[in-house]
């Protein structure tokens, strides 16, 4: 709704920011270079989505020799990632600590009483948006999102929606879905998207809102099927994944009659607070180069994310918008702490 307007607006700022980003770094590169080993702090456990993101970036930087300094990756994924952000808070002004996360960097403090605020972090860039889809079991009678939600509406609190964790993206999206379609699910929190995928394949739950990467194996085998994607546009048409369906053949939820324009999770990179502006410019430039490599494009394509580099004003606008959207849901659900 108004989100569309702000989205169009942010596209305009994007072009502006992109021009700045391209012109700025040449000056900044001479001004600031890392002078000690860089630590990539991953706000998830080994093997998680954020972990893969950081390790792919590390591998690309090493391959293209984008910095002379060695890069160490450490996992600080405790407390849904809070551990990594709190670590950043303890090293203000240290530009050798680069924190990898999602939108949990600014959303976690809303739902849990934690010793950090978004002010303890300096946003650097977002490199991709992970997509969400509505999935049902492969043998389910439902062919469209509309049919499914109509059935859910007819029997409130009967259908089980699975997702990873609690008060996180999956449950937020479920809540949005409930408010938009006037339905009520039983939300079952699992440890991760992988568990939610197998539980759906085994018919223990009725649907999930997994990212493409989390369900692709089960979809290929025909154990689950997508109903719609929570994106403004369809996913890029690629090779067929399951039967005669490819990612591009999935309708957007809006077209399928579910009034949610888009719901995406940014893959974000941060520095601690109070770092020199030159350092931010250095990393922005480096990550921009990463996002232009064929290896990055391959990663984004394989994990069916939307490659979108955002930095500077565009990133700030995106965060503000995403923050407001989510906070609205948290307020309605009464998840806000304090």
């Amino acid at each position: 709704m108004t989100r569309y307007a702000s989205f169009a607006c942010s596209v305009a700022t994007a072009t502006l920011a992109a021009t700045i980003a391209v012109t700025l770094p040449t000056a900044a590169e001479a001004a600031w270079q890392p002078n000690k080993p860089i630590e990539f702090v991953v706000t998830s456990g080994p093997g998680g989505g954020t972990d893969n993101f950081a390790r792919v970036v590390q591998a690309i930087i090493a391959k293209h020799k984008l910095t002379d300094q060695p890069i160490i990756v450490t996992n600080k994924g405790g407390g849904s990632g809070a551990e990594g952000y709190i670590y950043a808070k303890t090293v203000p002004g240290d530009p050798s600590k680069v924190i990898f996360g999602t939108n949990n960097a600014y959303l976690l403090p809303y739902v849990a009483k934690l010793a950090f605020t978004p002010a303890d972090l300096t946003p650097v860039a977002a490199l991709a948006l992970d997509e969400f889809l509505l999935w049902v079991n492969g043998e389910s009678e439902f062919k469209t999102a509309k049919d499914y939600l109509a059935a859910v509406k007819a029997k409130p609190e009967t259908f089980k929606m699975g997702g990873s964790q609690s008060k996180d993206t999956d449950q937020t999206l479920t809540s949005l879905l409930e408010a938009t379609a006037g339905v009520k699910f039983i939300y079952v929190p699992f440890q991760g998207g992988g568990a939610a995928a197998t539980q759906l394949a085994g018919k223990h739950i009725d649907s999930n809102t997994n990212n493409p990467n989390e369900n692709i194996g089960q979809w290929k085998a025909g154990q689950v099927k997508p109903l719609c994607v929570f994106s403004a546009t369809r996913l890029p048409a690629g090779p067929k994944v399951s039967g005669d369906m490819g990612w591009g053949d999935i309708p957007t939820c809006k077209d399928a009659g579910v009034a949610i324009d888009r719901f995406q999770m940014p893959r974000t990179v941060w520095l601690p607070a109070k770092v020199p502006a030159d350092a931010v410019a250095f990393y922005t430039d480096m990550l921009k180069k990463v996002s232009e490599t064929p290896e990055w494009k391959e990663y984004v394509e394989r994990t069916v994310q939307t490659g979108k580099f955002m930095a500077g004003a565009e990133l700030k606008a995106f965060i503000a918008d995403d923050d407001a959207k989510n906070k609205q849901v948290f307020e309605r659900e009464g998840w806000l702490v304090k």
Partner: protein
Amino acid sequence: MEGFSALLHGFGVALSGYHLALMVIGVLLGILVGVLPGLGAPNGVSLLLPLTFTMDPVAAIILLTSIYWGALFGGSTTSILFNIPGEPSSVATTFDGYPLAKQGQATQALSYAFLSAGFGALVGVVLITALSGWVARFALKFSSPEYFAVYFLAFASFVGLGGASPFKTVTSIGIGFALAAVGMDSVSGSLRLTFGLDQFIAGMSFLVAVIGLFGLGELVMTIETGMKLEGIRARISPRAVFETLLQMPRYWVALVRSAAVGCWMGITPGGPTAASFMSYGLAKRFSRRRSNFGRGEPEGVVSPETADHAAGTSAMLPMLALGVPGSATAAVMLGGLMIWGLNPGPMLFIERPDFVWGLVASMYLGNVVAVLLVLTTVPFFAAILRVPFAIIGPIIVVVCFVGAYTVASREFDLWLVLAFGAVGYAFKKLDYPIAPLVLAMVIGDKAEDAFRQSLIMSKGSAAIFWSNPLVASLMALALLLLFWPLLGGIARAMSRRARGPAA
């Protein structure tokens, strides 16, 4: 039987000089990683993961799994020699392995451990070969109630164990549950028991607790009882290794039972740690030499090791077929699979048979390589015990603290180790069992999550734990095990009464 022709094809893929060299390197690196406590298999595998990005997937998975096997064997080594489990799943090995080593039978203890581990692993791979098609479907039957039943079964087989008083065992489990609850709760998304301290947000690492409870706690006890490790006069010879090999068939019942427990727990997937505890518990319950358990009973080494490796190996199957990692190490490998461009799931077996069967074949070869390598190095590891305590004692303290720090690079963990060391000492003095506490710390939060997820699904009705034959039989088995000592007592009382009037 289609599995076997596929397997032959797999051997064709895995049997090359390059792959065999990778296995040897991987196993050696793994042993090193496993011997250093704290630096366990997950850390070792994730450290080497970036190296594999440029390799082809088959070579990469062979290297990583070989590190895993090596680390599992290395973890048993420190459990037996220093009472410091290098891996969560080798905790149960310390119960009898360390007493054996203290009695001067370090070589025998290590040989028992390695040989039975090798046996367990081989059973696991054979199972994967035979059941690959069927298991993927079976595992889909598992939902939260079934998971809870499996964890409950693990607890039940341990509680009714006898030995320590049931009250002390339950107390120990209760403390373990409380410790496992610290940190972020995934069902409610809120923090619990952190007392506003940042250090507790990530929860309490189970490995840190184990290093303190076993490593430091035991050290303090050793100092108190005379400042020497009793393994100093250990006779070390390759002959002892060979003699142990000849002894192995005597424990065939334990071997077969433990392998079955391990495979079951690996696939269901309860995990290697639960498997080793459960297998130890069962061995103790059904052994004729029950009173010798905890004092250096070979069966107490053979059982957990067999189950541990059988579970660790067969757990690769749900990881490949379902994308469900059964352990932290499997989770790292899963990340690796995705980076190499593979999608774990039921279709992996059909789309990439080269990869899957190459991996399975390499599991046969890798474990053989690992057993040979560790057996030839046993005398060297056992020789460590000849070093005087005045030298080795301080080194163990250093290793404990370094190990605890490497778990997550947190300074706070050093204080935790100290605190757990004190707790371990107190437990020993008061004769409270530590093992139930450790078990509760490892699978306590998983059991709790599964329990709460089940109740969310059923809208609060406990009937969900009896809702289908699978979960009902698991629960019934668990309850039977839990009350076994009680039932045994009643049966004895009844038979006495029956005999009474006749006498």
